[in-house]
């Protein structure tokens, strides 16, 4: 089998390999194209909303989103008409409610119909593990006996050739792009992530191109002093972008808490198509970049999320 994994700026010159810093606009336009398959890091926390907004601003269409559990990421992309297909486990708002834009798209084709392919979180995790190991598939004991198997023909239930008991096989996920928010990264692309890490290490390895956004840029010497914190090594990474508060209103462990009230307000607004569109006008189309989004949200509010995180999280 041909090794298809080679990436991480293979075609870059030596100086570009040492310094992958760019703007979010450049990173998204370089790697996220109409029809791309894409995944996002984080787990309803450390989700890179700034990149989602930029994708919407650039008017990218027909995305295939492969992911485990998402709230704002998938709801906004679907509502903005960027998504053709979802292969995932969870698109909702937890105790806040259902994903209004996803509902409108699936139930009524507004603004476009979205194909849904259902998996469980463990199944998606195994798909990215297979992708990250450059294996064609992985096995799981989830989904057996469920209707996910009935409606999703890519889940193959076989008898384990060694013991004879049933297992479900799931195909490797190898998206075109992964966008992962880290607490810190160096210009080479070594990404340091702490707190819970979702499937980020495997998403970065499985994707053909990986964009790292981060709260802080550090030096490679600083990376070397705490190599255990590096979840994603530079050779998986094509672009590094510093974007403080990139996850707002989601949380970033150690930096800012989840703004449940902001998220609740969005959820209220998005109950109608008109409400969602006016939200987009204000917070996405009305802001030329993430810094303007931060101003629109209000620095005081962002700082209060940092204060809340420091008050409650013992790091």
């Amino acid at each position, binding site marked *: 089998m041909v090794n298809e994994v080679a990436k991480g700026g293979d075609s870059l010159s030596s100086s570009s390999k040492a310094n992958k810093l760019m703007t979010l606009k450049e990173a998204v336009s370089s790697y996220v194209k109409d029809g791309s398959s894409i995944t996002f890091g984080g*787990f*309803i*926390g450390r989700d890179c909303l700034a990149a989602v907004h930029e994708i919407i601003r650039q008017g990218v269409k027909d995305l295939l989103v492969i992911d*485990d*559990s998402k709230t704002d990421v998938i709801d906004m992309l679907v509502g903005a008409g960027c998504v053709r297909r979802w292969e995932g*486990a*969870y698109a*909702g708002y*937890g*105790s*806040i409610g*259902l*994903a209004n834009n996803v*509902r409108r798209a*699936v*139930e009524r084709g507004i603004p476009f119909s979205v194909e*849904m392919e*259902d*998996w*469980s*979180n*463990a*199944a998606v*995790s*195994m798909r990215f*593990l297979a992708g990250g190991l450059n294996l064609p598939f992985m096995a799981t*004991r*989830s*989904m*057996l*006996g*469920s*209707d*996910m198997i009935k*409606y999703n023909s890519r889940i193959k*239930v076989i008898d384990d050739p060694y013991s004879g008991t*049933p*297992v*479900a096989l799931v195909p490797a996920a190898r998206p075109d792009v992964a966008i992962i928010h880290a607490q810190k990264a160096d210009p080479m692309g070594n990404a340091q992530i702490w*707190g*819970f*890490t*979702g*499937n*980020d290490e*495997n998403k970065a390895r499985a994707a053909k191109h990986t964009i790292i956004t981060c709260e802080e840029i550090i030096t490679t010497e600083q990376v070397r002093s705490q190599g255990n914190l590096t979840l994603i090594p530079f050779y998986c990474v094509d672009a590094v972008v510093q974007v403080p508060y990139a996850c707002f209103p989601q*949380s970033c*462990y150690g930096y*800012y*808490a*989840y703004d*449940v*009230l902001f*998220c609740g307000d969005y959820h209220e607004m998005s109950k109608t198509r008109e409400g969602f569109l006016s939200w987009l006008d204000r917070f996405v189309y009305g802001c030329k970049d993430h810094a303007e989004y931060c101003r629109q949200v209000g620095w005081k509010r962002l700082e209060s999320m940092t*204060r*809340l*995180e420091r008050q*409650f*999280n*013992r790091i």
Partner: protein
Amino acid sequence: MHGSGEYVKGKNYTASELMAITTCKEFKDWEVAFVGIGIPLVAGILAKRLHAPNLIIVYESGSIGPEKLRVDFNVGDSSAADGALCLTSEWHVFGDLQCGYYDIGVLGGAQIDRYGNLNTTAIFGEGDYHRPKVRLPGSGGGNDIGSSVGRVVIMMRLEKHRFVEKVDFITTPGFLDGSPGARKRVGLLGGGPAAVVTSKGVFRFRPETGEMYLHTIYPGVDVEEIRQSVGWDLIVSEDLKVVADPFDTELSALRSADPANLILGGAESRKHLSGYDQFVDLTLKHAVK
């Protein structure tokens, strides 16, 4: 007012509060619990504050055993990592679940049938899977928990459109068609549903048939009322028990676990908050040190 909706008639608690307190009694000290966000999590936190201080809560985002100072608002809220024994990756936690390390899981659902099969994917209505009446979030980790955890506790409001003869979509298998060994035959490792805690009473399952039966009712609830809310011919325990009213200590522990009433109260109570300052004040005041 705490919880959603009105107080139960003549009582000082709401149905959702009684559900949370009843669920919390399903956890045992030193168990490892895979708990979803929302009321199940509040029940887990409550258990830790009452009879099960060493209960270990696990989150699918990759957090094992956090000792949090405040309630989480979603499964990836950074408080979900607060004071954790181990912070790791999602696939490791699901691997540990599949290895059998986790004793109990708590799930919710939109539809359930008599064998405890759960639907969290779609309500078809006149449509189908591809164009349903209501598209729900999907499995998330629910299927994984229901497949492999030691035993499952389900929390659902008792309403006729939820307790149905046949679910539109089996997201998380219970006892499937109820035939002996049905779970094992398809390859499932976990023990399946142990209890369904509802807004009117608690159901458990007959081991030989996998069928749900009414085990306990809440004070002031009539069995006939429950029969009317279930879409099949319900079996009622010959030894039907009535659950006691919660103690004031239980109610106050519950209310301090969710001081701004954001989980139990939902969207309505967000409107009553004047803003973050009030939220922070309330949460700090009730935080466990």
